[in-house]
């Protein structure tokens, strides 16, 4: 929706960075360290070369959630209306994370973890309980936490994607209760 959005920046902004007193009413602003923050303009500045790309784990979680969702619907087809959109969303999340990992020169894992494969026959003598809605919800809630944890420290070009995924997972976690 378009608004005139006239009075924005440029109208009376001080030249130096604005400063506030420490007392503030909401938790939006915080005391910044005097030194430069870890986050720089360059996306790789806060990762050593030997650390795996944190988005690989997020992609894995997305794939696992999608497989779990498929298994839940296989066990209880009546859940399809509620869970199929989640499965599709987590599949799209995985693809987006993979693309971002590749963009940064990494190699994503592209197969679902075998433990979450739907329809795989259990080993002889093992009873595998069907995947319940509650288990799907727990997985998505955990995925939300995993993504949200990264948001504070990600570089600008990645934080939007991860935050969007966290928000999507949070919404499903609330809806699948």
């Amino acid at each position, binding site marked *: 929706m378009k608004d005139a959005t006239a009075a924005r920046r440029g109208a*009376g902004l001080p030249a130096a960075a604005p400063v506030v007193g420490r007392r503030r009413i909401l938790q939006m602003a915080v005391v910044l360290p005097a030194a430069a923050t870890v986050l720089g303009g360059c996306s790789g500045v806060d990762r050593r070369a030997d650390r795996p790309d944190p988005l690989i784990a997020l992609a894995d979680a997305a794939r696992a959630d999608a497989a779990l969702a498929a298994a839940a619907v296989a066990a209880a087809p009546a859940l399809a209306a509620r869970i199929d959109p989640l499965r599709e*969303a987590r599949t799209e999340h995985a693809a987006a994370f993979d693309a971002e990992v590749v963009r940064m020169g990494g190699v994503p894992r592209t197969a679902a973890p075998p433990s979450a494969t739907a329809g795989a026959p259990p080993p002889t003598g093992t009873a595998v309980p069907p995947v319940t809605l509650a288990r799907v919800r727990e997985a998505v809630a955990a995925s939300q936490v995993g993504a949200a944890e990264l948001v504070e420290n990600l570089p600008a070009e990645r934080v939007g994607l991860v935050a969007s995924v966290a*928000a999507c997972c949070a*919404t499903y976690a609330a809806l699948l209760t």
Partner: protein
Amino acid sequence: MSGGAARLDDVAVGALQDVLGAEHAALWSYALAVAFIAPDQVAAARTDTAAHRELRAQIEITLTQLGQRPVSAQPAYATPQPVTDAASAAGLLVTAETDAAAAWRSVLERSTDRALRRAGLKALTETAARCARWRAVVGTRPAVPVFPGRP
């Protein structure tokens, strides 16, 4: 560290002004829509309105403390379609929440302040939930945006 000061650079301040604009627009949208939406949606709309009022207040306070003049609301906003009934009213609320989500995501992308990012993520998450509910009312599939806030 008492007496410490918080700084937000001009880019982050700009992001806050932009999201304030989105919150102004959302409140205007809810005020218009509540007159048209289905009766069983009114309570939800009022709850959502209160949430946006709270966000607006928080942003205005933050900007004021930073020595900034919070951007004012516009007297009116252009709507994607005329609001004439419950369906178009719910559609306006989908637009309002979608725009707010984009603005909150942009706050995350334009700031490195950890507390601001936490607050922005919380706001993005809550606006995504509201957006999903109004999308469900409209009948948009999927109801839950796959990437809330993505432009």
